[in-house]
C-alpha cells in the first residue's frame, strides 16, 4: 500500500502543479487579487505532497519491499541502512523524484518566505515554477514511475552498484540537485519578472540569494564529486572532463557569471537584459546537464543505462522550456529599460569581463561536450577527451584568474587605470616572486603549472587586498565572503598546478618484504590478508610506509568483492600530510607471489578540495550577510 500511496501523492502533486499554473496565468491576465491569492497555498501543498512521495519511496527502500520493481532492481536486503536510504536516489527514477521534491519544496519556500517581490511578479514566478514541475511530473508518471510493482515479488534485490556504496556518493546527488533546482528557481524569477515587466534592482535583490544558494550547492557538489572520483575510482586523478562532470560544470560556470551580473543589477542597476539572459542560459545548462546524464547519449564513465525514450522525453522538455523562455525573452527584452551607464575601467567593467570570459569557457566546454553527438549524427564516431579541454579551457581560465584579481580592487562606476596599476603592485610582485622561487628550486617545470602557481600566488594577495587598512570587525560579511571565495580559487589553482607539476608515480609488482620508493616515501608490502565487511569481502594489503628516517606507519588498500551484483572494487588507502598525499592502490596478484601496487606521491593535492570548500564557505558567508542586511532593512522600513 505504501507504494500506491506514493504514486497517489505524486498524481495529486502533479494536478496541483497544473492548478498552480492555471491560477497564476488567469490571476495575472485578469488582474484578480483573489485568484492570485490562491496560488501560494497551492504551491505549499504541492511541496508537501512531493515530499510525502519521496518519503514513501525512502520507506519502501528502507523496508526492502521487493515487490516494488525499483527496489528489487537497485537494492538488497543485506545492504547497510545508509545505502538503503540513499539507494532511493541512487537510480534514475528515484533521482528524478528527488529532483521534483526539491523543486516542490523550493516552490513552497518561495510562497512562504519571499516578501521583497511585487505580488504579481511573485505569482508569475510561482506559475513558471509550476510549469517546470509539470514537465518533470509528466516525465515521472508516464515514463519513469518509481513506484511500479513487480509481480511476483523478487526473493531478494539485485543490489546497488558497489561503487555507489560510499557515504560521499550517498549525499552527492542531493547536493547537486539542490544546485540544479536553485538555478531553476532563479530562472522562474527571471520569467516572472519578464512577464510583469519588473526587471530592476528589487527583483535582483530577491533573486540573488537563490542564485547564491544554488551556486554554493553546485560548488560543494562538484568538489565532493571530484574528491569521490579521486579516492574511490583508484585512478589518482581528480578531473576527467567526463560529459557527466561537464554536465555539472556548465551550470556552475553560468551560475558564477549570473552571480556576478546579478550583483551589478542589485547594486548599480546595470546589465538588466544580460542578467535575465544569463538566468535563461544557466537554467538551460542545468537542463542540458540532466539530458546528458539521463539519456545515455554520450559515452561516459558515469551514465546510467541507455534509454533513448527517456532521452527524447527530456529533449522535448528542454526544447519547450528553453524555446519558450527565449521566445519570451525575445518578445519582452525591448521593454526592459536601459540600466545605469558606467565607464569601462570600473567594477562593472571588470564584472562584464568576468562574464565574457566565463561565457567563453562555458562555450568551449559546451562545444567539446556536444560535438561528439553532432559528429555521430553526421556519421563520424568521435570522442573529445581531456587533451581538448586542457588546451582550450585551460588557458582561458588562466586569463580569467589573471583578471579576477583586479576586479575587487576597482571602484564602482568609474576608476583610474593608473590607480589600479598601483593597487596591483603587491599581487604582481607576489606572482613574480613565486615564479622566481619555482625556477630556482625546480629548474623550470611545464608552462601551464608554472603559470598556474604564479597566478595563484598573485590572486591570493589580490583577494585579501580589499581587507587592507579596513576595520576588520566592521567589514560586512559579504565582503568577507567575496574575499574567501576568491582566495579559494587561488588555493584550488595552486593545488591543481602542484599536482600536475610534481606528482610522482610508480607501478610495481611487489613481493612481500621488498621496499619500493615513491617521492620521499619508502613502501614495503608486509602481507595480504582477507577481511570481511557488511556485504563484501576483501583482500587487504598491509603496507609499512616510512618517510626518510621518520616513524613508520601502516596503510591498508583493499580489493573488495561484492556478491550482489558480483563486482570487484579497489579501495585506495591515502595518507594525508600537510604537504600532500601518499595514495596507494592494490591491484591483482600475478600468480607468482607478487601483487600489483600503484603508488602516487601528490604534493599539495588536497589544496584542490580545500579551495573548493573555501569557495563554498565564501558563498555561504555572502548569503548569510546579504540575508541579514535585507532583514534589517525590512525591519527599519517597518518601523519608519
Amino acid at each position: 500500500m505504501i507504494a500506491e500511496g506514493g504514486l497517489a501523492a505524486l498524481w495529486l502533486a502533479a494536478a496541483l502543479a497544473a492548478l498552480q499554473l492555471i491560477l497564476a496565468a488567469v490571476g495575472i491576465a485578469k488582474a484578480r487579487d483573489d485568484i492570485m491569492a490562491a496560488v501560494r497555498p497551492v504551491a505549499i501543498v504541492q511541496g508537501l505532497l512531493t515530499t510525502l512521495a519521496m518519503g514513501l519511496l525512502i520507506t519502501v527502500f528502507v523496508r526492502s519491499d521487493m515487490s516494488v520493481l525499483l527496489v528489487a532492481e537497485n537494492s538488497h536486503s543485506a545492504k547497510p541502512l545508509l545505502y538503503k536510504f540513499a539507494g532511493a536516489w541512487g537510480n534514475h527514477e528515484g533521482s528524478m523524484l528527488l529532483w521534483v521534491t526539491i523543486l516542490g519544496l523550493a516552490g513552497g519556500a518561495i510562497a512562504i518566505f519571499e516578501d521583497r517581490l511585487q505580488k504579481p511578479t511573485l505569482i508569475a514566478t510561482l506559475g513558471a515554477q509550476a510549469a517546470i514541475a509539470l514537465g518533470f511530473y509528466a516525465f515521472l508518471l508516464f515514463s519513469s514511475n518509481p513506484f511500479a510493482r513487480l509481480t511476483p515479488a523478487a526473493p531478494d534485490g539485485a543490489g546497488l552498484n558497489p561503487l555507489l556504496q560510499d557515504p560521499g556518493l550517498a549525499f552527492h546527488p542531493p547536493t547537486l540537485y539542490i544546485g540544479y533546482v536553485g538555478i531553476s528557481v532563479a530562472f522562474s524569477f527571471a520569467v516572472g519578472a519578464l512577464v510583469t515587466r519588473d526587471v530592476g534592482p528589487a527583483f535582483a535583490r530577491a533573486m540573488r540569494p537563490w542564485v547564491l544558494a544554488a551556486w554554493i550547492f553546485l560548488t560543494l557538489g562538484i568538489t565532493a564529486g571530484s574528491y569521490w572520483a579521486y579516492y574511490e575510482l583508484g585512478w589518482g586523478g581528480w578531473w576527467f572532463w567526463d560529459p557527466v562532470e561537464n554536465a555539472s560544470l556548465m551550470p556552475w560556470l553560468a551560475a558564477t557569471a549570473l552571480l556576478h551580473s546579478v550583483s551589478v543589477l542589485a547594486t548599480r542597476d546595470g546589465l538588466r537584459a544580460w542578467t535575465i539572459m544569463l538566468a535563461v542560459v544557466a537554467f538551460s545548462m542545468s537542463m542540458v546537464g540532466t539530458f546528458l546524464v539521463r539519456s545515455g547519449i554520450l559515452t561516459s564513465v558515469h551514465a546510467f543505462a541507455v534509454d533513448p525514450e527517456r532521452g527524447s522525453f527530456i529533449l522535448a522538455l528542454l526544447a519547450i522550456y528553453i524555446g519558450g523562455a527565449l521566445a519570451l525573452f525575445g518578445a519582452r527584452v525591448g521593454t526592459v529599460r536601459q540600466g545605469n551607464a558606467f565607464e569601462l575601467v570600473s567594477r562593472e567593467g571588470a564584472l562584464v569581463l568576468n562574464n565574457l570570459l566565463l561565457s567563453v569557457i562555458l562555450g568551449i566546454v559546451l562545444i567539446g561536450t556536444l560535438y561528439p553527438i553532432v559528429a555521430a549524427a553526421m556519421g563520424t564516431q568521435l570522442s573529445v577527451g581531456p587533451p581538448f579541454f586542457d588546451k582550450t579551457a585551460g588557458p582561458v581560465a588562466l586569463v580569467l584568474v589573471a583578471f579576477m584579481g583586479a576586479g575587487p580592487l576597482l571602484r564602482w562606476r568609474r576608476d583610474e587605470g593608473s590607480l589600479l596599476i598601483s593597487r596591483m603592485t603587491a599581487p604582481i610582485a607576489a606572482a613574480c616572486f613565486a615564479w622566481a622561487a619555482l625556477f630556482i628550486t625546480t629548474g623550470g617545470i611545464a608552462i601551464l603549472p608554472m603559470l598556474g602557481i604564479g597566478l595563484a600566488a598573485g590572486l591570493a594577495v589580490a583577494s585579501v587586498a580589499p581587507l587592507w587598512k579596513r576595520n576588520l570587525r566592521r567589514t560586512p560579511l559579504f565582503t568577507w565572503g567575496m574575499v574567501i571565495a576568491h582566495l579559494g580559487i587561488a588555493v584550488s589553482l595552486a593545488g591543481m598546478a602542484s599536482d600536475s607539476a610534481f606528482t610522482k608515480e610508480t607501478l610495481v609488482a611487489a613481493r612481500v618484504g621488498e621496499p619500493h620508493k615513491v617521492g620521499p616515501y619508502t613502501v614495503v608490502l608486509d602481507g595480504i590478508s582477507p577481511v570481511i565487511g557488511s556485504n563484501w569481502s576483501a583482500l587487504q594489503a598491509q603496507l609499512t610506509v616510512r618517510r626518510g628516517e621518520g616513524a613508520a606507519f601502516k596503510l591498508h588498500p583493499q580489493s573488495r568483492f561484492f556478491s550482489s551484483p558480483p563486482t570487484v572494487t579497489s579501495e585506495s588507502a591515502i595518507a594525508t600530510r600537510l604537504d600532500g598525499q601518499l595514495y596507494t592502490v592494490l591491484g591483482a596478484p600475478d600468480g607468482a607471489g607478487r601483487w600489483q601496487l600503484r603508488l602516487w606521491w601528490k604534493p599539495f593535492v588536497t589544496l584542490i578540495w580545500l579551495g573548493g570548500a573555501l569557495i563554498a564557505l565564501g558563498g555561504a558567508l555572502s548569503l548569510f550577510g546579504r540575508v541579514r542586511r535585507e532583514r534589517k532593512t525590512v525591519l527599519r522600513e517597518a518601523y519608519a
Partner: protein
Amino acid sequence: MKAKHQRLTLALLAVVAIAGASGLALSALKDQAAFFYAPSDVAKAGPPLGHAVRLGGMVEKGSIRRKPDGVSIDFVVTDGAARVPVSFSGITPDLFKEASGVVAEGNFNADGSFTASNLLAKHDERYMPPQVSGNMHETKTLEQ
C-alpha cells in the same frame, strides 16, 4: 564615453571573445579530438598513426595474458568482425574482464597493434559503450 559607444565596444569585445573561443575550440578539435575507432574501422582503413585515439570493443574471451614483469598485460579487443592486439601497463579497472566492453586510450603502432595508456570501463555493470553496441549491430546486419 557615450552609452552608445560603450555598448558598441562591449559588443565588439564579445564578438572577438566568442570568435577567439570558437577558433581555439575548432583548431583543437582538429588535432586534439581523440578519434574513436572500432577494430573493424582499423581493418578497413589501416591504423591511424601519430596521435592519441580511443579504441573501443569487447575484450576477446581467453585473450588476456599477463607478462613476466607482473604489471603489464596483453589482450585482444574485438567487435566481432576484426581484432586488435592491445598491450597495457597498470592496474586494470574494476569492471575490466573478458567478454565485456572496454575503451582503450593510447596509440596505434605501425604493425597494427595498440599500446594503451589508459583503460576505461563503466561504473554501471549494464554498460556497453554506445559506439560499441552500434558497431556490433552493424556487423550483425552485414553478416545476415
